[in-house]
């Protein structure tokens, strides 16, 4: 692909953004699964946060995951850049706007993808600085010992972060916007890829709605549980 994205066909750009988007959704599920382990209480065999800390180390050091991490960053960058290219082109396609803007019966979420996307992007940057780089370089985390082996207590870092109500609210609000983004995104990606079939599309739309609820709810129960000390 020697050609720059700007010169690709409008439909090619849509395929790329849709495929990158679907890949990012699959990542969200993996991320959510690992995050939820931080809520597992201590049991006979494991201490509190032990499973989470071990999972976090696996995600940081496993070579396969490391390769996927590069793919993931590429996915984010491609999705964001293509989204911006498409949006700027869309704005340019109507240089003179209407006095009375349209109010057709359509999904309201689809009209604000760039806005919700921007909010998620800001969240992503803050999130990377707050958690990812700290975890990556093992900064700001105390040591913890399981079976005589040293681990970094990232679970404790998360619990400490979510003591701040402002941060909890910011975190929840960001996921609310991610939910809005996903509500349109998931099913829309299939339409862009041409996979709209009258028999299966209602199912994909339902799946899209479920995803847009599960992801934000799943991610937000963690700060809520931690803040209110439910676990």
């Amino acid at each position, binding site marked *: 692909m020697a050609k720059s994205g700007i010169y690709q066909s409008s*439909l090619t750009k849509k395929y790329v953004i849709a495929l990158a988007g679907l890949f990012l959704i699959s990542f969200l599920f993996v991320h959510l699964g690992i995050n939820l382990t931080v809520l597992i209480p201590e049991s006979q065999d494991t201490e509190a946060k032990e499973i989470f800390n071990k999972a976090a180390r696996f995600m940081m050091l496993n070579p396969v995951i490391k390769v996927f991490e590069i793919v993931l960053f590429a996915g984010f960058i491609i999705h964001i850049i293509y989204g911006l290219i498409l949006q700027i082109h*869309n704005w*340019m*396609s*109507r240089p003179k*706007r209407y006095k*009375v803007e349209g109010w057709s019966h359509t999904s309201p979420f689809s*009209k604000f993808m760039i806005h919700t996307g921007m909010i998620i992007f800001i969240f992503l940057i803050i999130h990377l600085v707050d958690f990812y780089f700290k975890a990556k370089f093992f900064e700001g985390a105390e040591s913890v010992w399981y079976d005589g082996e040293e681990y970094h207590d990232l679970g404790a870092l998360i619990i400490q972060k979510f003591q701040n109500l402002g941060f909890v609210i910011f975190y929840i609000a960001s996921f609310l916007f991610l939910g809005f983004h996903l509500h349109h995104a998931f099913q829309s990606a299939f339409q862009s*890829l041409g996979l709209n079939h009258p028999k299966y599309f209602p199912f994909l739309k339902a799946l899209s709605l479920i995803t847009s609820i599960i992801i934000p709810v799943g991610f937000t129960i963690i700060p809520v549980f931690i803040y209110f000390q439910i676990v």
Partner: protein
Amino acid sequence: MNFTLKIWRQKDAKSKGKFEKYSISDISPDCSFLEMLDILNEQLVARGEEPVAFDHDCREGICGTCSLYINGRPHGPDDAITTCQVHMRRFKDGDTIVIEPWRAKPFSVIKDLIVNRNAFDKIIQAGGFISVDTGGIPDANAIPIRKEKADQSMDAASCIGCGACVAACKNASAMLFVAAKVSQFALLPQGRIEAKERVQKMVAKMDELGFGNCTNTYACEAECPKEISVEHIARMNREFFGAKVGGRKNIKK
């Protein structure tokens, strides 16, 4: 019925243009929207003013020539009809009605409410046809076609090329129009022969002319006077993908 009209007035393509306010009274509720504009124009002419230029032809909802953006909706407040089929009874007495031309970079304003929709013709010229040799009339049943396919093709072919999809789309995208034109041929055996080249050429022309991209908001489907389904857009996407991946050559123009 009495109305206040705010109408976009623009002398020619180069002028800046602005909204003008007109009051019109004693309009029958059974008057069509275009007849109401005719009455306004008669009054303007009688006053020695320039009448409002707007596109219209058949006034039967068939030709797709009328093209007004009325209070934020292409073809006015009703679903599945063209502007000429809108009647003044759809408005309330004393309403203010804002009338604008289609707004899109490829649809330049010629005068007042008339836009140049030549861009659609250019897209059709790029590939919206089948190349057949003329000759004797072939037997109607020589090529069997599934009823389902024939129906879908007919639905796509009902596009009148009015441009409401572009006008309604927040991105001024022509995807529904192009998709309908690609689909009507792609669904039938005669159209399959040139399908791979057609979709690439028409999409390339659409991009070149400066139409926006599809966000799958589906305002086009909601406003289309012929209720053309966005399933056709998905079909175009499939056709395009198939042509890019499976076609022997990439066609850019």
